[in-house]
């Protein structure tokens, strides 16, 4: 019951948010200077050519009318046609979505593993040099933004010690049997571990670059919250039963300590997804972010709109998932 109410409420607020995003994006990118039609035509095109092409894409109409047309299309699942590629926006955007989702989720998994381990090791060794070392590492990881980590990783693992690929999503000469865009996932299902390894070798550095700052945040926050939890009465009671430190941390403290971290990770994960725009560019990874930059450079208005809306949908979905997870992990909410 509570679940249903949460979901309904979220769907409603999501729709309102998306409508707001749609309005803002639509008008902002039209106010910014730069004419998509002028960029499409060869130099020396006449005013007449420009006018004709503008009419073709509906760009000659008043802005509000344009918005009405666009919105009516969106309602029917038609996000318009990309000006540069002349293909439907929806297909283009959905085609790139899996690449970005796989990259983001890989980065999130890495961040949780790295940050979680740091927090657990730091808690296990609290008050010792181990904890000090973890704090220093966390501080360093936090003080450098993801794209700089990308450059550092590129230098280390791409140039000095070339074990990973520095660009692309997959080696182009390989022939790909995939029917979905989720290459990493599908290669596992098809038991094509050779392809999987190739994909990971491409994804490793961009994912790690995205993961490092989030890992540091998780590490710091979870450790703090674990240390506080470790002093609580129920943890002490578990110790008197004969349980050792590791069991007590994992079984008694971790779940309760993870709750406050979880909410923050949700917010930070949306930042991470935002970070894919630059990281994908840096590693020439063919995802949504990379496409977004091209679209902006080419003033491909319908494509920009489609990508922004999709990002907004992803963000709200992430927030919804976090809320649901929180309810699942917290028995006090589950029964409310």
């Amino acid at each position, binding site marked *: 019951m509570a679940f249903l109410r949460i979901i309904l409420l979220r769907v409603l607020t999501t729709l309102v948010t998306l409508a707001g995003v749609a309005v803002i994006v639509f008008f902002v990118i039209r106010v910014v200077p730069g004419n998509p039609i002028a960029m499409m035509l060869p130099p020396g095109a006449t005013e007449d050519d420009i006018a004709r092409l503008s009419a073709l894409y509906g760009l000659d109409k008043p802005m509000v009318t344009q918005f009405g047309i666009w919105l009516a299309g969106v309602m029917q699942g038609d996000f318009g046609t990309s000006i540069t590629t002349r293909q439907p926006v929806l297909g283009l955007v959905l085609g790139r979505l899996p690449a970005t989702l796989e990259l983001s989720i890989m980065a999130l998994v890495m961040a949780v593993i790295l940050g979680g381990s740091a927090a657990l090791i730091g808690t296990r060794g609290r008050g010792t040099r181990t904890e000090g070392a973890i704090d220093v590492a966390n501080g360093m990881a936090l003080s450098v933004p993801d794209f700089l980590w990308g450059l550092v990783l590129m230098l280390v693992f791409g140039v000095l010690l070339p074990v990973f690929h520095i660009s692309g999503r997959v080696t182009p000469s390989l022939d790909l049997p995939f029917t979905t865009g989720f290459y990493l996932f599908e290669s596992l299902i098809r038991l094509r571990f050779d392809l999987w390894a190739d994909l990971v070798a491409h994804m490793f550095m961009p994912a790690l670059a995205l993961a490092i700052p989030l890992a540091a945040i998780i590490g710091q926050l979870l450790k703090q919250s674990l240390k506080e939890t470790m002093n609580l009465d129920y943890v002490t009671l*578990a110790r008197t039963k004969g349980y050792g430190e590791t069991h007590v941390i994992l079984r008694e403290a971790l779940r309760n300590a993870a709750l406050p971290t979880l909410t923050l990770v949700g917010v930070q994960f949306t930042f991470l997804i935002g970070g894919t725009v630059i990281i994908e560019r840096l590693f020439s990874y063919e995802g949504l972010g990379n496409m977004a930059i091209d679209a902006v450079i080419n003033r491909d208005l319908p494509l920009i709109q489609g990508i922004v809306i999709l990002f907004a949908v992803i963000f709200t979905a992430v927030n919804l998932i976090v809320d649901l997870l929180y309810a699942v992990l917290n*028995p006090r909410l589950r029964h409310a």
Partner: protein
Amino acid sequence: MSFLSIRNLSVRLKNGPPLLRRVSLDVAAGEVRGLVGESGAGKSMIGKAVLGILPPSVQITEGEILLDGTDLLRLSPRESRRRIGASCALIPQDPLTALNPSHRIGPQITNRLVDILGWTRAAADARAIDLLAEVQISDPARVLRSYPHELSGGMRQRILIASAFAAEPKLIVADEPTTALDVTVQKQILRLIAGMQARHGTALLFVTHDLGVVSKVCQKLSVLYSGLVLEDSTVTDFFTAPRHAYSAALLAATPKYTDPDAGLQPVPDAVIGAVRAEVDSFDRKAAHG
């Protein structure tokens, strides 16, 4: 021989003042010993030392904690933990914070039996049902499936008591087990602990402020001031002829059931002064070896 025997146990804050000063006390099998003294006297510290849960900010500087003749302080941490888990249990002070909010009640009672003592899950579950019935919880099966936040404080304390007796420990430490409860349920819980203790023949180290409780539940008691044991008596001797002036003052400070209006008399300053002097003289002697 006593099941628990503490010999000359000294505990201090790391690089700080002493918290326990050569404390010695015994608890024989099936016996109940009260630990009384003002707030900060070190009562809980003794219980924590026995159960191996001293805070990391303190250290044991001397002494022995003999459990069934074996000094816990000479064992590896792992072995000492195992022995404590197998033969001792704690009834905590605050039932609202002593249960893990994200686990159901059932596993919180049975986990020691299964994980530490190697019972089968079925046997442990059956035991949990019996125990809840013994602490007078109706519908035990439902309670075992509940989460702590669904139960009242008195209910949770009953569960913690059941859990403490689950493995038939030789010794239970009860640290002010009723102070966090409503006055109305305090008496019931006290009676419950005393009844369970008598039925199971468990030795009990009972930390309390309340001499009235001591007179009802305990056979022996230790009076503590600033980590120093001032008096170690049987309860009968203590109430008829206290040996230490501080004990006498404590007794006088306790309202009498016969004359509740006589009111609380604070421990006189002169007595406090004398006890402080005793503590100082102990520290001087300790400093000179």
